[in-house]
């Protein structure tokens, strides 16, 4: 497990860059982060259009300047309870396979600068899902921040709808 996680970002520039900037946010009360370069923009939450027959973690679609983009509830995606509607909720727009996808998070916290050496491998826990979705963890201001493995969270769009 150790070596597998190691290999995960062996090739990525995360390891080699001196300091990388990450955007941290809360999902179901837990701190997560994504590399800033993976994020296209962060938008205020607005009601989405529900997709018929969509699984619980697919909230629906949103209009992003004329493009129709699917919105995922990260919390539900991680197997936690659905995110409750709140004024502070944000949609983090990321690009997966060249297509924009929105991720619903509770709130955005801050931008943190991380030395790649400080990234710890995810210790093995008894949750298959979590292990796939989390690329590594860091300790920041006394809290544990989880680095999301975007490719594992959002697979090819065609597989979204069951």
């Amino acid at each position: 497990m150790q070596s597998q996680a190691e290999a995960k970002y062996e090739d990525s520039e995360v390891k080699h860059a001196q300091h990388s900037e990450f955007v941290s946010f809360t999902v179901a009360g837990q701190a997560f982060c994504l590399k800033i370069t993976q994020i296209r923009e962060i938008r205020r939450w607005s009601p989405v259009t529900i997709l018929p027959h969509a699984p619980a973690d697919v909230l629906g679609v949103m209009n992003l300047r004329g493009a129709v983009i699917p919105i995922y509830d990260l919390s539900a995606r991680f197997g936690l309870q659905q995110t409750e509607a709140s004024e502070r909720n944000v949609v983090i727009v990321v690009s997966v396979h060249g297509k924009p996808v929105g991720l619903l998070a509770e709130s955005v916290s801050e931008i943190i600068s991380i030395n790649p050496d400080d990234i710890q491998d995810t210790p093995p826990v008894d949750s298959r899902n979590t292990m796939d979705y989390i690329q590594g963890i860091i300790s920041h201001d006394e809290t544990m921040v989880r680095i999301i493995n975007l490719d594992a969270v959002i697979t090819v769009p065609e597989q979204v709808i069951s």
Partner: protein
Amino acid sequence: MAGSIQDTFFEECEELLEAMDEGLTAIEGGDHDPEVVNAVFRAVHSIKGGAGAFGLDELVAFAHKFETVFDEVRANRLGLDTKLIQLLLRSSDHLSDLVSTARDGGSTDEAHHDVLIAALEEYIDEDEEEVVFQPMGLGGAFEMSPIEVEKERVYSIRFHPLKDMYGTGNEPYFLFQTLADLGTLEVTLDESELPGFDALDTDESYLIWALTLTTTEPKSAIESVFEFVEGLCELSIESDMDEEDEANALAALEAAFGAAPEEGGDQVAAPFEPPVSAPEPEAVAAPVAAKAAAPKAEAAKSEQRGPNPTLRVDLERVDRLINAVGELIINHSMLAQQIANLDVADLRDVETELEGFKNLARDIQEGVMSIRAQPVKPLFQRMARIVREASAATGKTAKLITEGENTEVDKTVIERLSDPLTHILRNAVDHGVEKPDDREAAGKSRSGEIRLSASHRSGSVCIEIKDDGAGVNRPRVKQIAIDKGLIPENADLTDSEIDNLLFLPGFSTAKEISNLSGRGVGMDVVKNAVTALGGRINIASTPGKGSVFTIILPLTLAVMDGMVVSVADQTMVVPITSIVETMRGSDDMVNNLGADGTLLSIRGNFVPVCDVGGALGLSKADQDQPPGVYLLVETETGQRSALAVDDIHDQRQVVIKSLDGVCGNIPGVAAATILGDGKIAMILDPESILAASPSAAAFDTERRISNAIAS
């Protein structure tokens, strides 16, 4: 890389084949103008040239024969009689087959190929003799035959480079050097234009050269030297030829430089084609210079002659632009909404400006939409061939007359219209037009006439296919429908209802019956194709006079007319084309059937009800609630159902946004659109909603009854 060049060649072929068809159609229509003949010749020649470059031997060989015959026509050594025109038409069909074969693989009909080659050769053989015996006296063009060229001539060339020529890095010295290779060259500098030192503009070009070249080379060789500075210099080439020759040469020169409209067709193209005009069919591989010069001159000319210069653009870029413009319009309406909500006393100026913004945005939208639009001409031209083939196959004579070829329709619509049109036209020849003898007996001309026309009609495109045949045999059609159980025996149908029975899916399944019926082979397929395009089709027939098929299509596929409804608190859009009628329900209309089947009684007919919210997996409609609104829809199979929705808001044009690739294929949903408030609304697909609804299949019997009587 090689693939992309080849792709370009095939794209060009499309245009050339179109030009060829167009020319041949004109010739068939009696227009024997040398320029038309030339246009066809040039098209065939260019295809041959390109095909040669890609080693498409079969295509080259055939194009060569075709071209040679045309050359004979061009030189007035061959009269255009009906037989020859028919051969040329068939050859052009075959040529486009060969091009498609070369592009898509597969094989062509060898026997057909050989027959055509043989037929073409018949014309060539005869005329080759003529050429041998009388190669002269056929107009100036033939002065360029190799024998003549041997003679040494003195050319006076006046060459004045424009400043742009220097700007492109061209150097007169090298041009002169190349000229010197052709013969003996004398160069004199004419500096008369040179202003005084004070007035000298260092960027201007003042120098003019007078050159005298003594050479045995044809003039085209000299022209090709200057080919690369075409348009960048003032050039005149004169020779010591006699006057007639000079006029010729001038015309050729002008043609080459695209400076003036050419007069005599054959005088123009011939100088570039010495090997083809020469009585040596082997000389397919024309000298490089001549080959290089010909397409250039053709390009210059076709640009001049063609109605509009065109630009090839990647469709994706256009789509991106359409998207952005759609967004601009939505953005406008959001802005307008917010300004209207502002609590400010005087907004008049802002509103005026906003109105201007709106008009501008609409203009841009229209402009952008029109980028995708293309004239239906190429499609119609292809149809001429369908009619020819169908006539040949059935032993009837029918002529296709096209109208409104310049009507523009969305590119995708044109592409998808090809199959249904083919079908209708084949049917028109096969079943509509009578046999020549029958026609004569009926007091009509022996040859049938099919009129294919396109026009714009209030925001839609109307395509009409009209034949002057016998019309629909109504008693027979009705009898067949009864026999097939499509309508009840005692059904009382109007004439137009009987005509429209042809579109019923069951009508055409059995071939032997439809052969008897006279009409209707696969007409349901045609209807489906048209409906899939968001259009509708109608037939009107007059016994003994013929039938008219009318296809009404939306201008573009990117925009569609939709009815905005609400379903389970969501706003959704239902395509207008699938809605037959809408009605507000009342208690006495709803009848329960079985456990959860619901039937709606509409003027005595029972139609199954499908709850849209439930079918989409959204909240199930509350049974205790008063019945909402029903949309009566008709599916591709002619089945009628009532879609229950909560409310109808309005009817408007919506911009279609595909959901494939975003969320995959969602049952019941065709696409999405963005409403004025910036929200996304699902565009429903009634067909697949009904397919998902269990109540749908249960009412097959009811469907037939209701369908027959209500249609």
